[in-house]
């Protein structure tokens, strides 16, 4: 039976470097995709990704198993992302709530139809639609899908009410469905 994330993090806190490696390999993919989908480019995503893990390493002494490791990890990640948006003058984008799902017109980047499997087309389309989501809705969607966080955890992380987060997710889903159109 593999140790839990919390146990690994506590061992790393006590100086076990191997525990950190196990944690990293478990969560690197999801966290990388979260930063990738939240940013404009791969380069910025990689920079943020490394910065997030540096934050984890630096804050290891303050970690306690009172909270889930994934909640704690994505809390650091979200804060780094907010700092990035603020530093780049995109903080307004992070706050904009586009709640008009029906009016979302997402243009496909490639107008030419491609011979791809239906799944591949759906995946590709979905990713494009997610990219078009407003930052607050995108965050809620990604934190649920990549981090597996529950409604309450997301609400606490972004410092919003439970109902606000629920509403945000509802609008995100609506926009994605509209964007997917026939592909869904």
């Amino acid at each position: 039976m593999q140790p839990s994330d919390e146990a690994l993090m506590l061992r790393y806190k006590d100086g076990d470097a191997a525990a950190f490696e196990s944690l990293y390999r478990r969560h690197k993919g999801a966290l990388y995709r979260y930063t990738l989908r939240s940013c404009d480019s791969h380069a910025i995503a990689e920079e943020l990704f490394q910065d997030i893990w540096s934050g984890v390493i630096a804050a290891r002494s303050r970690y306690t198993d009172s909270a889930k490791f994934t909640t704690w990890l994505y809390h650091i990640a979200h804060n780094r992302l907010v700092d990035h948006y603020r530093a780049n003058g995109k903080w307004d984008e992070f706050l904009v709530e586009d709640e008009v799902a029906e009016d979302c017109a997402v243009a496909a980047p490639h107008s030419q139809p491609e011979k791809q499997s239906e799944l591949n087309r759906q995946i590709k389309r979905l990713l494009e639609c997610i990219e078009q989501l407003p930052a607050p809705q995108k965050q809620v969607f990604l934190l649920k899908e990549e981090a597996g966080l529950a409604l309450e955890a997301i609400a606490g992380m972004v410092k919003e009410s439970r109902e606000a987060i629920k509403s945000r997710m509802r609008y995100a889903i609506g926009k994605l469905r509209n964007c997917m159109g026939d592909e869904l």
Partner: protein
Amino acid sequence: MNDQHDHDFGDDKLSAIYQQSCVEEPPMKLDSAILAEGRKAVAKKGKWWRASWITPMATVSVAVLAVAIGMLNKSMVNEHEVIMEKKAQDAMIMEDSAEPVREMKSLGNIESMRQSAPAPKAAPEASGMAAPAPAPAPAQLMEQEAVAPAIAPAPAMKRKAAPAEKMELRSREGMVAEPQQFIEEMDLAKPQAKDEVLKPEAWLEKIRELKAAGKDEEVARELELFRKAYPDYEIPKAYLPIN
């Protein structure tokens, strides 16, 4: 906790499609850099000076060292006090030893030194030499008795060792003023020590006999000693040398 409303939090179909898209992974160089940073962070923590036990051990070590230094300092102080006390005692002993010497010097009485030494054998001879010696004058007896007790407390003052002791005392400051005088006196006293302590009349009789025998040098010497021993005694002219 999830309630009924949380069930529709998200979209199952969209989630299924999205999960199929989760293929992106960070590049390997990024993995290496992050893992190296993670190892380095805890490697620093492993340094001996950051060990959790180092602070208590250092505290205990400092405390033990402080106690040891305190005890060593105390023993050194005690040792110094012992040395000083011993020196003081030695000084007192030497001072006590010098008392009889000073007393004899003040009295100027060689016979007092002869009396302090045990000379029981000399008594009969002295008696023989001074056969017609008169009984000691009461004043002289009192003087001798007064001197003897004063000398008694210094058993270390043995007669034969007196010159050497005088020499030793001479080495100490202010103990003996005229050591040569004592040496001479002791040398002169040696022959007499074999005889008993002569009273003035007996002594003069002896001097007369020496004079009659023509031993002028001895006569002069004895007269000199007599005068020192009995400065107030009027020596009859018959006993004085002709020149």
